[in-house]
């Protein structure tokens, strides 16, 4: 009996991080403000979660400018994509085993 929980990714425990990853999985790149609107969190909160994901190499950050305003866009890395898919499969397994 293998333990399906071992495949669940600790990093994706937080709903906000899960939300960020989901949005990035279906979009090439999403900027900070769009993420903020989608997930509806405060700047600081979102920034700290993004930092965590960046540190685990799950997302790439691209700092640019629109006019004079900073425009930071985020996109998912190969590692992030893989980690997220494994996490999804683990969730699926868990739910299958519950019936």
């Amino acid at each position, binding site marked *: 009996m293998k333990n399906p929980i071992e495949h669940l990714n600790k990093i994706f425990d937080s709903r906000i991080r*899960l939300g960020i990853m989901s949005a990035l999985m*279906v979009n090439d790149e999403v900027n900070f403000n*769009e993420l903020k*609107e*989608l997930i509806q969190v405060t700047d600081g909160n979102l920034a700290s979660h993004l930092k965590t994901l960046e540190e685990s190499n799950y997302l790439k950050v691209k700092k640019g400018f629109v006019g004079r305003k900073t425009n930071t866009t985020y996109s998912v890395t190969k590692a992030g994509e893989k980690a997220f898919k494994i996490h999804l499969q683990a*969730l699926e397994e868990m*739910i299958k085993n519950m019936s």
Partner: protein
Amino acid sequence: MTDAKQHLEAIQDIRQMMERSSRFISLSGWSGIAAGLCALVGAHFANRTIHSSYISSYDGGRIHGTSGSIARLLTDQLFHIALVTFVAAFVLAFLFTYVRSRRQNIPIWGTSSRRLLFNVSIPMVVGGLFILKLLEVGAYGLVAPGCLIFYGLALVNASKYTLGEIRYLGFGQLILGVMNCWAIGYGIYFWAIGFGILHILYGTLMLWKYERK
């Protein structure tokens, strides 16, 4: 078993986020209804123009000139009616959707709406050029089916980036357009059904499904 609930919630979160971040869902049912009404009004004027042109082609006792010039005059008028109709429909549709996106706090000019607009534009622009060419060579009978077919393709293409139901509206327009190819000369009626009735039907359904208070 709160664990199970948690995981289910996580999956729901993921699905919701993927939906919300990839589709522009502020399209208002009122937009469809307004566009449909514009099309019906436009079709009415076009119809009147067509019928009155038969009479005016006598042109005060002079033997009417080459039917070619009459046809050109008529298509010019029809072209203008079509253009005004299209612009009015587009502006009204945009307005209702704008109001709705305001209410939902979704930016009207975000990634999702840009992507939607871009993907609608591909078949529309190509179709528009093709139809202009049809007018140029005088294949007037193919103009209405052409409009319906390209518009149908645009909607089917758009369905991945906005409300999924728009796909069926697209299929409806495509079926009408194809049927119209074998009923040349009745274009105005197909036009009225496709751009008018189908839009109103779709808009009403969407209102009822998504915007009921």
